[in-house]
């Protein structure tokens, strides 16, 4: 659609026309702000906790567990140097052998969600699939935050119309 719009503008005399190929989906998946009716409603990216502890694959379970729990967390996200999500550690993984490297202890390749997903959808999905927490990432796989099911459910209760409209 956008290429046709660009061609149309050029036919009408516009000389500097650019086409944002990846479009609105790419923008929203990067967690960038939008305007409009949905922008005021809570979404995965706005509700996700940004202060979730992160760790590297070479860290040891014991040190990550101690650091996470000292901060009041029972979860941590394994990321690389670019903050791309590599794995997730929930309570069960954090309780593994203290000397085990994170790479062996973590849940590799956890399901991730984009920041623009309405919170009601997230709450329903996480409840149905019994997910206590889920990483929210950009389209590049970079961590935005960790969404807790309890947060998603609480926010969804206050926003029953927080679902995507199919136009």
């Amino acid at each position: 659609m956008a290429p046709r719009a660009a061609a149309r503008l050029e036919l009408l005399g516009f000389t500097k026309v650019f086409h944002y190929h990846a479009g609105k989906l790419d923008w929203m998946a990067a967690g960038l702000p939008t305007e409009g009716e949905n922008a005021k409603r809570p979404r995965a990216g706005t509700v996700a906790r940004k202060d979730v502890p992160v760790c590297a694959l070479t860290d040891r379970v014991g040190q990550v567990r101690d650091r996470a729990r000292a901060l009041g967390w029972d979860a941590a996200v394994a990321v690389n140097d670019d903050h791309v999500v590599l794995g997730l550690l929930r309570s069960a993984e954090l309780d593994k052998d203290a000397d085990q490297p994170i790479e062996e202890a973590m849940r590799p390749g956890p399901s991730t969600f984009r920041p623009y997903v309405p919170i009601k959808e997230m709450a329903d999905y996480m409840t149905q699939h019994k997910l206590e927490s889920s990483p929210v990432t950009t389209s590049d796989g970079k961590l935005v935050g960790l969404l807790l099911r309890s947060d998603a459910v609480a926010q969804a209760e206050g926003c029953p119309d927080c679902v995507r409209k199919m136009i």
Partner: protein
Amino acid sequence: MATVIDRDQVQDLVAQGAVLVEVLKAEEYQEDHLPGALSIPLAQIDRETVKTLDQEHPMIVYCWDAA
């Protein structure tokens, strides 16, 4: 032919004053649009709807995705 750009280039061009134009239906624009974007649905792009826009000004058009 229009120049294809990515997200970073969009942000750079907008910072320089480029105009964003969403060409999806108005209902979709009302739901969510890029900050400051105008709504000109594809079917409505004609001399009348663009007459207030500066033809020498950079224009960035976008829709939902690359499909």
